[in-house]
């Protein structure tokens, strides 16, 4: 069954959210979804950019002022 994995990157400065996301994505199974919680405005640009380059589905959801959840689905 597809799982949902959360990754807490609140308070982390660039490029830490992206590195942690890359490491985590390597470990989740195909079909799983990773939710990265960030509050660094650059991360909502560079994380989705990387994810889409890798060919994953990716969406950004603003959950609070200046706080986001980046939802990445490992499609392959």
């Amino acid at each position: 069954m597809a799982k949902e994995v959360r990754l807490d990157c609140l308070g982390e400065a660039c490029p830490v959210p992206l590195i942690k996301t890359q490491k985590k994505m390597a470990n989740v199974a195909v079909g799983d979804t990773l939710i990265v919680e960030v509050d660094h405005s650059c991360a909502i640009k560079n994380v989705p950019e990387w994810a889409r380059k890798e060919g994953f589905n990716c969406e950004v959801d603003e959950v609070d002022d200046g706080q986001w959840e980046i939802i990445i689905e490992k499609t392959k």
Partner: protein
Amino acid sequence: MQIKDSPYYKSFLKNPWSYVAGAVILAILNTAIFTITGSPWGVTSTFAMWGAWMFKALGGHPETWVYFQGKSGETLAKGIAAHTGTFMNLGIIVGALLASLLASEFRIKKIKNMKQVAAAIIGGLLMGYGARISFGCNIGALFSGIASMSLHGWQYLIFIFLGAWAGSKMLVKFFM
């Protein structure tokens, strides 16, 4: 909220602009600054001035240093209110605040752990000292230096890249 649904609001104030759009606007602004002030955009020499004014206020005598002979010394003597670089740096801070408020994304981001404190202190000191002995930062020496067609700008690019490589190793090992 009607304004938040406007496509103009979204494309100008809410959604990130493309990097290339930013690059072109920054290049035009740098050229404009060069035209009106006589020297290209720089950020860090203003930090040295701020430090010197604070040091002076505390009773120090930075005006005796080699660095403050000549033009920087005149700026030091005239004081902070006359210094245009100060207003430019304050403008960058306020401009970024303005952009995040208009996007409704401002929040105070607290420090997460002691590693970040150490990184900020060591990183800040290294950047401050490094910028003074190499005529600037990524803006003054790299962006404006290369665009001025000076050899030192190209040399700066090579060594800052090596520094970034070393810094990346340290970041992953100690500060993450």
